[in-house]
């Protein structure tokens, strides 16, 4: 997975994500967007799969956007044990959906995602609707290990996450972070908008006309790209990708 939150030169926050997973052909056919409504008004929107009731990508209009990237730690049985022994631990996708439904500010969303016990370690990437609202929350099962925030005033106008702790170097054989950063810096803060965020999410290594199959922003596992901007909720859209 790759998730990016960026602030453009006018102070608008943009959130782009590629969801990479196995079983691509299965998942691509069942990817949908869902507008969760009460009294005819959209309370929140998510990108999901037929049959899936949680959320790994979503937006609360005019408030915040959330994406989840897997964190390469531990083993499946640790997650299963956590689920069995810790009744307070939430499924990742349930916490995201509950946060979209119940948190009514960016800060409340950050608190819920940072400190609610979880079954699995993950990254939550959160974008707001106001200047400088953007963060990557590195989670273990109990709590947040780190909350890495955007700081445009200090030149950090975007934060991004693939699947490795941002303070560590990613593995050499899966360094999607570097090409993503390069693409963002080439685009520049003045060039950031929905279309350029989609372009960054579509970056793949090419040698002339030959597409190289090395891990990249857009790779074989990418099932969809979603682009959101909480301050402009109508922007939110999702595209199935067939790399």
């Amino acid at each position, binding site marked *: 997975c790759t998730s990016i939150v960026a602030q453009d030169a006018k102070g608008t926050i943009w959130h782009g994500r590629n969801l990479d997973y196995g079983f691509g052909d299965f998942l691509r056919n069942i990817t949908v*967007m869902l*507008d969760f409504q009460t009294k005819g008004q959209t309370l929140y929107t998510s990108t999901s799969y*037929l*049959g899936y009731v949680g959320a790994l990508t979503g937006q609360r209009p005019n408030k915040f956007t959330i994406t989840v990237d*897997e964190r390469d730690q531990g083993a499946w049985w640790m997650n299963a044990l956590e689920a069995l022994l810790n009744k307070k631990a939430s499924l990742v996708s349930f916490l995201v959906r509950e946060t979209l439904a119940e948190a009514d500010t960016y800060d409340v969303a950050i608190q819920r995602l940072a400190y609610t016990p979880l079954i*699995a370690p993950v990254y939550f990437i959160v974008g707001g609707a106001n200047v400088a609202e953007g963060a990557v929350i590195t989670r273990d099962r109990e709590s947040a290990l780190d909350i890495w925030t955007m700081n445009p005033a200090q030149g950090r106008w975007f934060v991004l996450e693939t699947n490795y702790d941002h303070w560590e170097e990613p593995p050499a054989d899966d360094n999607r972070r570097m090409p993503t950063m390069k693409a963002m810096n080439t685009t520049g803060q003045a060039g950031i908008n929905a279309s350029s965020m989609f372009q960054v999410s579509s970056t793949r290594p090419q040698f002339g006309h030959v597409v190289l199959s090395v891990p990249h922003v857009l790779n074989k596992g990418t099932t969809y790209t979603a682009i959101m901007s909480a301050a402009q909720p109508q922007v939110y859209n*999702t595209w*199935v990708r067939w790399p």
Partner: protein
Amino acid sequence: RDVPVKRYVVNLDAAPEEHFLPMCQDPDILELIPMLKKDAKDMITSLVPEEVLPLVDILTADLDQYLPQPFAGEMRGIANCTGIDLGEIVILNLAYDLTAF
């Protein structure tokens, strides 16, 4: 082929079992169901260790005790309208957490 995905409304004022009915009853989705059933089985057999399956049976037998609302009711609703086995719907929903490591 990078096409925008289809979009559906989930009416949160309806009972959880009815939340995903509009999607399930879409002819485009109905057409996919047979393939979905097969793909879901493939995904589950290759993704979930066999040791876990008895756990899922326990979970499914008493879903409301283990999973919060509206999720338990929604999974039941999806199983009813797609004809996909409830246990498989549960596994598909747990798959991310089980594989997020």
